[in-house]
């Protein structure tokens, strides 16, 4: 018997290598601008000194060990962050939806980390191995000295960049200059080595090896972006009517050189040079229409504009435009369609939430207080029949100086509350203190009083009285 010969379909698709061609143009310049800005911030910010008398002299540092997050002049604590991060997440999401509704996947093409690092890695590849034709040749040639040397160098430089990316990330979580010393002398915390190792590998794999596959198969955003698209959303579009004409695309050749000649023969403006395909970092042909792997980076626009310029045709065969305009019988100039309920809604949400965030940060109190009732026992009957409840007050000083707090009560007689040794208590900066309070009321009063308030007044700002409500329990409540 003879074995089955049909090749079964594989469970994975083998990657078809992409060798993006370098391109010049306004979107390419914009991308470089974003990349330089982002890299300066990410790689530079961690080294920015910021003198502090009660913390590390680092402008931005997330001190997980001491649960303090230094962001320039702001010192945030986990309990602040839970609110702020929630707001920030909402703002980021709404901003993303807002931008996507307006101009499609602008985030993907220009600002996403995957794009930024892949772009940089491709630039390195280009620098070492040459532009697209040379890279394709190198790929096809058998393994020899040249190929090993060039590919080895590329991967080595990629690994270096990955390492420094990972190291920089780790440096945000500890005092950076100390980390450099400890890391290279083998004294850093195991977590630092683990973080750097994992991030080096993931950066190398994602930006060096994975590239567009991350966008296509891993990133969830690629899959749900389409729900935010409208017919009015600006997306990278090939003007099929103008490019294909009646008879389709045709290369420049005698008799089909000027626009008039091409019009007469029914050809469109597209000369089928395939540059737009060669420069695409995700390896698609935008002329096939909008497709999900497209990250809206605009490099095909740059490539096409360059070609149109060189042959004297008007620009904009590939451009940012919306479906409505492209499909209309008399297309106008593409413009932003912002007068839409959805866009305005997203915009408003961003503005309102940003205002809330700013308000929340600006009005953060220097004191954090919490009153908890001692519940075992809930109340005690004293020898003279009085009822006593006990409370624990936690005072956390968030200011940068030692502060003295005066404690008091409202709603019950002042002498009913016994603060022990701590009617006034001094708390060092960034410290928290527990104070035990017992409140004694005669039986008749205990029957009547259900709740009262604790007041906490910082000595340096007597007008700022913090009030915490408390309940009083007795035998009958």
């Amino acid at each position, binding site marked *: 018997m003879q074995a089955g010969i049909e090749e079964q379909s594989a469970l994975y698709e083998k990657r078809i290598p992409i060798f993006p061609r370098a391109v010049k143009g306004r979107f390419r310049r914009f991308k470089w601008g974003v990349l330089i800005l982002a890299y300066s911030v990410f790689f530079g910010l961690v080294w920015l000194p910021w003198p502090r008398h009660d913390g590390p002299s680092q402008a931005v540092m997330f001190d997980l060990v001491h649960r303090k997050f230094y962001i320039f002049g702001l010192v945030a604590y986990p309990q602040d962050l839970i609110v702020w991060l929630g707001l920030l997440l909402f703002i980021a999401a709404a901003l993303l939806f807002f931008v996507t509704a307006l101009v499609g996947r602008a985030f993907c093409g220009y600002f996403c980390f995957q794009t930024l690092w892949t772009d940089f890695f491709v630039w390195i590849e280009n620098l070492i191995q040459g532009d697209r034709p040379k890279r394709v040749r190198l790929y096809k040639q058998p393994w020899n000295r040249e190929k090993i040397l060039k590919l080895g160098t590329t991967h080595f430089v990629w690994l270096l960049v990955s390492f420094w990316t990972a190291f920089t990330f780790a440096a945000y979580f500890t005092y950076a200059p100390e980390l450099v010393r400890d890391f290279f002398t083998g004294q850093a915390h195991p977590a630092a080595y683990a973080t750097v190792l994992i991030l080096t590998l993931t950066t190398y794999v994602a930006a060096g090896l994975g590239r567009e596959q991350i966008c296509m198969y891993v990133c969830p955003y690629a899959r749900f972006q389409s729900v935010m698209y409208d017919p009015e959303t600006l997306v990278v579009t090939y003007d099929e009517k103008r490019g294909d004409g009646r008879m389709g695309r045709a290369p420049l050749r005698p008799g089909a050189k000027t626009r008039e000649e091409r019009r007469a023969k029914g050809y469109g403006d597209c000369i089928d040079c395939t540059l737009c395909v060669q420069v695409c970092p995700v390896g698609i042909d935008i002329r096939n229409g909008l497709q999900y792997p497209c990250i809206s980076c605009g490099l095909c626009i740059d490539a096409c504009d360059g070609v149109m310029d060189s042959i004297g045709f008007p620009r904009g065969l590939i451009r940012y435009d919306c479906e409505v305009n492209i499909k209309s019988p008399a297309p106008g100039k593409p413009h932003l369609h912002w007068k839409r309920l959805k866009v305005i809604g997203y915009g408003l949400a961003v503005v309102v939430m940003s205002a809330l965030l700013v308000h929340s940060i600006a009005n953060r109190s220097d004191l954090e207080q919490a009153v908890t009732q001692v519940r075992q026992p809930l109340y005690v009957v004293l020898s003279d029949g009085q009822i006593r409840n006990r409370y624990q007050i936690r005072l956390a000083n968030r200011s940068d100086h030692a502060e003295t707090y005066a404690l008091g009560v409202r709603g019950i007689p002042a002498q009913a509350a016994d603060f022990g040794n701590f009617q006034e208590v001094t708390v060092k900066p960034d410290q928290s203190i*527990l104070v*035990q309070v017992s409140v004694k009321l005669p039986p008749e009063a205990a029957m009547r009083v259900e709740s009262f308030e604790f007041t906490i007044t910082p000595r340096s700002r007597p007008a700022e009285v913090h009030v915490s409500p408390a309940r009083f329990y007795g035998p009958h409540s």
Partner: protein
Amino acid sequence: MSKEKLQSHAVQTTGHAWDGDLQEYNNPLPRWWVWAFYLTIVFALVYWVLYPAWPLGKGYTTGIAKVTYVNSKGETVTTHWNTRADLMAEMNAAAKAQKPYYDKIAALPLEQIAKDPELNSFVISAGKQLFGDNCAACHQAGGQGVVGLFPNLTDDDWLYGGTLEKIQETITYGRRGFMPAFGSVFTPEQIDQLANYVLSLSGEKVDAVKAQAGNALFHSMDAMCFYCHGDDAKGRQDVGAPNLTDKIWLWAKVPAADTPEKKVEAVKTVITQGLGKGVMPAWKDRLKPEQIKLLAVYVHELGGGK
């Protein structure tokens, strides 16, 4: 249609045939699955080397991972990795972190400890732990005690005194409360009279005539109640005799009784049977002096301290 053509539509087979035409499909596993399987094997190998893994007769392979800790006798022990040693190492680290506070507590007089805000906060949190481990079994988690069994530490009544020093003394050396049984000394009627008198001292509703008689009996040389509880029935802290005039009850389950009769019964039980179970163990052999000191401050702050 030829045989080959037919087969070209089938999936791959293993290439074997049994009984003439019986074939087996070949459905290889996905590559990622196979790699994950290999990784688990590598993980297992690394695990065997590092950690205790294989039983060998009466013993087992111990692995090369080591844990070093200081045991309760103060000896430094290095052993192969196990969860108990791992816990001990963590306990060592916790004790090291608490040491500066305990050093301060050991050095300071009792009153000073409660006045330092930071130290006081430490007392509250560490005291809760120590109290939970050593005292809560009897005095309950919040120190509220059980009427008839264990004193309430959160009220303002103290059998032996509620100053910081007295509390420290009580924890260190323990206490032994005792009251003789009067069941065979008095007639039931006399006991009833005494109970009525005792309840009247706390402002409870009683039979005035019986209480009158009980008063006389209380102060008589027959009963000698006043010898421990005092002429004014306010108790004597030097012998641990409770104050009978306040509203706090330790042995007689008066607060739980809802009728005057039951209250009398509760007091009568105590007078008839006496008490021998008021034993507070000594903690000096189990806790370190600074731990006892911390507990004294903690108990003082439970609310009853004087």
